[in-house]
């Protein structure tokens, strides 16, 4: 379980996150949704410690994460995996070296054991015969999958995904969503996904938090989101014409 209490974040005098309190449940795919610039990425980065919150607390189980020093955070971070918006694969390393990087840094495994683990992770995300390729030689969808393989290489307890579908075609986006959901169930991870893709919300959102202009406006499940009374949430959910038509048919 990840718990956020009264979190504030200010950038250059501008309040980007305003008193956010939310609990992300264990073993579930938790979604943070909202418009671009609403503060989703800042919230995610504040949770994982890439931003220091100006006020508030971030708890990983019973550990107050944001007050830990570098070494303390390092221990918790060994249990985290993160998929960044632009994949953030290391340009100078091959696919295999990218996935092996956390194993090289934090395990004492032999090269054979590490290679086995790398191949297992790559196979799990359906990347085959691409071990020796560099990130520049991969498509957007492949980059995301390699980044997921790197994120799960250390068997993490927590998985964070920042807009995993951005820049992908609808079919590849569905594949990435399915992969995240499957991995969450398979490894009983606590997954937090930042997205503004409504298909992801409906398909994988077991718990959804809606952020608007730095404030938490709504939280619920994918079953509840379509019947919400929250006006700003409805404006967001039914923003495109197809969704509006479907809503009209449903009524």
């Amino acid at each position, binding site marked *: 379980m990840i718990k956020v209490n009264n979190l504030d974040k200010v950038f250059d005098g501008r309040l980007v996150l305003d008193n956010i309190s939310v609990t992300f449940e264990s073993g579930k795919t938790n979604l943070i949704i909202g418009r671009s610039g609403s503060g989703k990425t800042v919230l995610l980065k504040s949770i994982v410690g890439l931003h220091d919150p100006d006020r508030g607390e971030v708890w990983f189980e019973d550990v107050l994460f944001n007050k830990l020093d*570098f070494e303390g955070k390092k221990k918790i971070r*060994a249990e985290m995996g993160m998929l960044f918006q632009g994949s*953030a694969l290391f*340009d100078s390393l091959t696919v295999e070296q990218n996935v092996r990087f956390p194993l090289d*840094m934090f395990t004492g495994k032999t090269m054979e054991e590490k290679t086995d683990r790398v191949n297992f992770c790559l196979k799990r995300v359906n990347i085959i015969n691409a071990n020796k390729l560099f990130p520049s030689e991969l498509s957007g969808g492949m980059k995301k999958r390699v980044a997921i393989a790197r994120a799960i290489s250390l068997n993490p307890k927590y998985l964070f995904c920042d807009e995993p579908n951005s820049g992908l075609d609808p079919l590849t986006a569905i594949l990435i969503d399915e992969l995240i959901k499957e991995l969450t169930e398979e490894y009983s991870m606590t997954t937090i996904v930042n997205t503004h893709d409504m298909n992801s919300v409906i398909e994988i959102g077991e718990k959804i938090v809606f952020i608007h202009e730095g404030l938490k406006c709504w939280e619920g499940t994918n079953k509840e989101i379509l019947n919400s009374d929250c006006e700003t949430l409805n404006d967001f959910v039914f923003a495109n014409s197809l969704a509006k038509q479907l809503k009209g048919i449903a009524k």
Partner: protein
Amino acid sequence: MKYPCKYIIMVTVLKLSSLKSVNICNFRLNYFPCMIRFLREMGRYFLMLQKVFSKPEKPHIYYKQTMHELVYLGVNSVGIISIISFFMGAVITLQTAYNTENPIYPTYLIGLGCRDSIILEFSSTISALILAGKVGSNIASEIGTMRVTEQIDALEMMGVNSASYLVLPKIIATLLFNPILTLISITVGIIGGWIAGTAAGVITSEDFVYGIQYAFIPYYITYSLIKTLFFAFIITSVSAFQGYYVDGGSLEVGRASTKAVVYSSLIILLFNVILTQLLLS
């Protein structure tokens, strides 16, 4: 005492940082915000260095990185340093020859002048300025791109000390290899001077060889190598600092790259004066 000293300093710095200008004895000073910004940047630079020199997590990974940087930043610079040193030596010889056309001066002085100019100044300082352009911009843009594409965030996320992992191998590699580059530069520069001098007929081969051996002071080589070590550290750390704290996109990476070259060149020139005074006085 009513207030502790630390409190008074803190309040003074805060007051100064909020001032845009101040009148002291009818002299308007507009420099406080610039000064505070300068001090803040200095503070960030030294904080980054503190992170860079903290204990590495896996020394063997740092060793591999250092070997990679030795090739990338060091061996790959041999070509440009050799070409520039050759022509530098040639021009110094010819200019010395044409400016000392006097029967009073023995011609071997041309060789001596070429040797001393190259060892004392050109091979260390001019090579450092060239490397600031080549290596400095390379380091700033590489680390800056890693910052804007979230690769540094990915390292931090894994619990890796990103400053140490990215910068320390570069600093070690340049500290190890730049003295070798300086020695190559000295050798090639003197060869360039010898070829140009004899080919242009301004000095005989015997006189040039006599001149480069005449009144040789070995300490000059030590002086040149000490300067090179300082310059190598300046080039790598200043450029890495510019790249590491990039905020924005490709435009900012380009700006950081330019700043890296400009700032490291200026600091090299400043340290050249200080080190010359300290080592030769």
